[in-house]
């Protein structure tokens, strides 16, 4: 018997076997590599990125399994003075989004666009407080684009 985590003879051979086995039989699928290449086409250089700062999914109560039917997921995106808050409710594969852009955009710029990775962009109106809502979106990767008083902003992609 060899105890505990002490290095023993054959460790490197075993690591080599794992390396070979995963490389040969669990390699990244071609379509996944192709999709990664295509991520480049979503590159934006003319907007400020607002990062996903908070996702209620990652909260401790979500961890403990409190998350039940009808739970609303809350996301906060932010960078500098820009902030976009979104609440998402699920109904099967459908999603309802309710959110707010802060600070609210000026009168000429009251729209926000939901980009969908699988194609299509949905333009939503913002009210004078920067609020928006969208119903019956299908699940998938999305990002939000808008123009607030400081300029163009785009959120990180997030799976909803």
């Amino acid at each position, binding site marked *: *018997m*060899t*105890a*505990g*985590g*002490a*290095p*023993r*003879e*054959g*460790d490197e*051979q*075993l*690591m*080599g*076997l*794992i*390396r*070979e*086995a*995963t*490389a*040969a*039989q*669990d*390699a*990244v*699928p071609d*379509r*996944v*590599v192709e*999709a*990664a*290449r295509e*991520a*480049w086409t*979503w*590159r*934006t*250089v003319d907007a400020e*990125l607002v990062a996903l700062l908070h*996702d209620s*999914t*990652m909260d401790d109560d*979500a*961890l403990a*399994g409190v*998350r039940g039917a009808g739970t609303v*997921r809350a996301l906060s995106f932010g960078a500098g003075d820009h902030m976009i808050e979104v609440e998402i409710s699920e109904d099967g594969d459908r999603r309802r989004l309710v959110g707010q852009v802060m600070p609210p955009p000026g009168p000429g710029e009251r729209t926000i666009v939901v980009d969908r*990775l699988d194609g299509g962009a949905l333009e939503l109106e913002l009210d004078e407080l920067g609020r928006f809502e969208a119903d019956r979106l299908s699940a998938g*990767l999305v990002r939000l684009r808008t123009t607030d008083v400081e300029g163009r902003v785009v959120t*990180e*992609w*997030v*799976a909803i």
Partner: protein
Amino acid sequence: MLQPEEARPLVLAAAGGDRAAWDRLVEEFSGLVWSVIRGCGLFGAEAADVSQTVWLRFVEHIDRLREAERAGAWLATTARHECFRVMRRSGRQVVTADVPEVAGPDETDAVVEALAVAEDRGAVLVALGRIPARCQELLRLMTAEPPLSYDDIAEAMNVPRGWIGPTRGRCLNHLRRALAQDAAPGRGPDDDGSGIRHAPGGSGQVKEADR
């Protein structure tokens, strides 16, 4: 294979708008991202979606990476984080418990040797799938290509650097036990001659106290 010092110019070129540099980064690192996601326990469409999220994040962040030469570490950390997000969203438990110590049966060396000679990769993967979740994760990270440094792995798994070596040793012993059991199918999981009782279910969920 990409050397660590080669990542930096590729990242800088891609950040400057060079599509070919991007394609090269994908070619070099897509396997690493996949290893992390598979190690965290996802497969199929979910794994593909997480991979895509990671690469979209990389496009967004490529012009603001603090350490361009550590793109692999950034990708591994992001992949693990996004993997856990998906698991939590679907109500699956994320195992953060430490890996229990087990003794590695001595007779496994012959089993390992036989597998190496037979090039039986399937058996290795099956056994890998039966050891504690954190071990699957660590061993996948430690055998990813291009290789991650201990610092990269510590950052990605959010553990101290000194945790890695001893845990690897324990995990390899778990793997030896799984291999020995698979090689001797007549014996029950609680009677592999090691005198150590297996957790119910044999592997996966470890219910020790958190680290």
